[in-house]
């Protein structure tokens, strides 16, 4: 651990010059797999753009935290998931959900509060889940998911399964007590969890400089004896390379890892955040978009290595637009949950009490 900081500098120097797509974990990707990465990134973008449109039309209520600009992070990491791996994140969860393979229809319908939504309209934008795909939410309380992520990894170790849990959190979430408690616990117990700080520079309207005393967030790992690293989040190949190192380490060594990924969100904190050009400059947003847009970066690389052509890239884009539009139509036409659904899915035992064996009153409605 003591030499982590110094070796890190050396690694960063050399890695800047190297193309991440040539590293082993990326070089081994088939053409189809690379196209799939592109389809996922584009899919997230088009889905969210369509959801924003629906929000502005008044079809979606509540909060809508868009992931636009950060897509390469979830896409890259989910592409590395092995059989026993699990992920969990906060409320900015659409990208992670689509990346694990949830379909646009169920995700859009959930935003509309419809019965066909992934949570039957009970969770909303911030609370997507797909346990069958290793995706455990979708959590609305800042950093509330961090001990849960540790628990998923604890269960793997307890059951003797080789795997890891990846727990995503924001640059604001690192200042929650529950996260710091969890860092100590996972290091003390040797829990195979990778915490990925998606550092988009802002927690709501507060810049990193105004919320964290020390600018390097991952470095906090050192205080707990946790190995850490940082990388950029606009290039899916860079994300994959760094996350692969972290996830492999967690699985092989049964130890936690703290990975800080610098990224950027183009939109406001949520759609309701109309002031997002007041706490940052328009120029800052435009510069990132111009130089580091994860879709553009990937498209250029894939055209350069002949995985895609301009035309085939456009085709994917068009296909995802159509899929997103169709999901909005599906959501629109779906029914709201019936009133009887209000008290379903509260207790497992009630939902499964097919032979009426349960004793006592569970709900207290006159």
């Amino acid at each position, binding site marked *: 651990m003591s030499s982590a900081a110094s070796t890190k500098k050396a690694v960063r120097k050399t890695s800047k010059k190297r193309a991440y797509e040539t590293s082993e974990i990326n070089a081994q990707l088939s053409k189809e797999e690379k196209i799939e990465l592109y389809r996922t990134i584009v899919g997230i973008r088009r889905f969210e753009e369509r959801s924003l449109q629906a929000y502005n039309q008044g079809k979606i209520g509540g909060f809508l935290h868009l992931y636009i600009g950060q897509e390469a992070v979830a896409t890259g990491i989910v592409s590395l998931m092995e059989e026993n791996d*699990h992920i*969990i994140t906060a409320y900015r969860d659409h990208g992670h959900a689509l990346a694990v393979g949830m379909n646009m229809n169920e995700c859009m319908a959930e935003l509309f509060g419809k019965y066909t*939504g*992934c*949570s*039957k*309209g*009970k*969770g909303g934008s911030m*609370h997507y*889940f*797909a*346990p*069958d795909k290793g995706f*455990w*939410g*979708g*959590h*609305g*309380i800042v950093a*509330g998911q*961090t*001990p*849960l*992520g*540790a*628990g*998923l*990894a*604890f*269960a*793997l170790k*307890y*059951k003797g399964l080789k795997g890891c*849990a990846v727990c995503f959190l924001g640059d604001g979430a690192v200042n929650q*007590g*529950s996260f710091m*408690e*969890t860092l*100590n*616990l996972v290091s*003390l117990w040797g829990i195979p969890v990778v915490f990925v700080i998606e550092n988009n520079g802002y927690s709501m309207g507060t810049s990193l400089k105004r919320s964290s005393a020390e600018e390097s967030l991952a470095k906090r790992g050192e205080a707990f004896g946790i190995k850490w690293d940082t990388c950029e989040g606009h290039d899916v190949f860079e994300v994959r390379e760094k996350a692969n190192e972290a996830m492999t380490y967690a699985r092989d060594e049964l130890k936690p890892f703290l990975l800080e990924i610098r990224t950027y969100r183009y939109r406001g904190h949520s759609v309701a955040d109309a002031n997002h050009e007041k706490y940052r400059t328009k120029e800052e947003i435009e510069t990132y978009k111009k130089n580091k847009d994860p879709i553009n970066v990937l498209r250029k690389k894939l055209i350069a290595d002949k995985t895609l052509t301009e035309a085939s890239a456009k085709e994917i884009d068009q296909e995802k637009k159509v899929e997103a539009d169709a999901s909005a139509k599906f959501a629109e036409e779906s029914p709201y949950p019936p009133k009887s659904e209000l*008290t*379903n*899915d*509260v*207790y*497992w*035992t009630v*939902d*499964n009490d097919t032979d009426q064996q*349960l*004793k*006592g*009153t*569970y*709900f*207290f409605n*006159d």
Partner: protein
Amino acid sequence: MPLITYREAIKQALAEEIERDENVCILGEEVAQYNGAYKVTEGLWDKYGDKRIIDTPISEAAFSGLAIGASMLGVRPVVEMMFMSFSYVAFDQLFNNASFCRYMSGGLMNVPIVVRGPANGGTNVGATHSHTPENLVANHPGLKVVCPSNAYDAKGLMKSAIRDNDPVFVMENTLLYGEKWEVPEEEYVVELGVANVLKEGSDISIITHGRCAMISLKAAEILAEKHSINAEVIDLRSIRPLDETTILNSVKKTHRAVLVEENKPFCGVDAQISHLIQYKAFDDLDAPVHRVSAIDAPQIYSKPLEDWQIPNEERIIESVLKCLA
């Protein structure tokens, strides 16, 4: 039947469930090497080792949340709170995550954890260590909560709680840990949602839970001896789910009810019971429902005053006489 302590009964339940199911493990501060702050887990670490009996740092939010996350993948952790008062620093984990994850996922997951530990006053430790949050728990659909008043129930309810596929809080009581009751040697469980008629009676129903059930029973004996009042004593055992039928049947028989609990009165468990009785047995009542709760102030340290603050025989008898007047 052997006489064993409340503490021993809980330990037996934990040990039996650890033996029965390899996914059951115990997590908490001082539970392993130190044998438990209140010695409830004494000897378990020696017998079952590090995998099943796990000492945690003083990080209630982290280890509660970790238990919840682990339970999503089929581990069945029993989390010890050294005092239930300390669950407040894990509030988000227990009251958001344990309670609502199932709902927010539309039923895609469940959280089979047990949160157990002492939840009582009367121990001369002041306001921060004397919470009785069964009302808070019961206010969160998705959570279940039981309050065993004796060793038999403590063992039986604990076993049910561990086998339950939902999060269950088991509210114990430090003043009961050393008390003894008859507990059978054979395996048994006490189902959630079933109240216990501790004493049958015809003049008035005393409806209560936790250690107050034992105090109410003594009060009922005094009422019989000194006042010729035949009180029925109902021990709720389980708060959520709640055995409404037993409550209502008793009130329909006696036509009067005194509710006794250690909770503070405002939004205490008995506020709900009181509503239930007036709503579903209004025509059967011959007097307003009376309540004996902890006197409505932060828990006082000073011993003689604290003994007066939480329900005692004297206050219960006074309330019963008022209700019958």
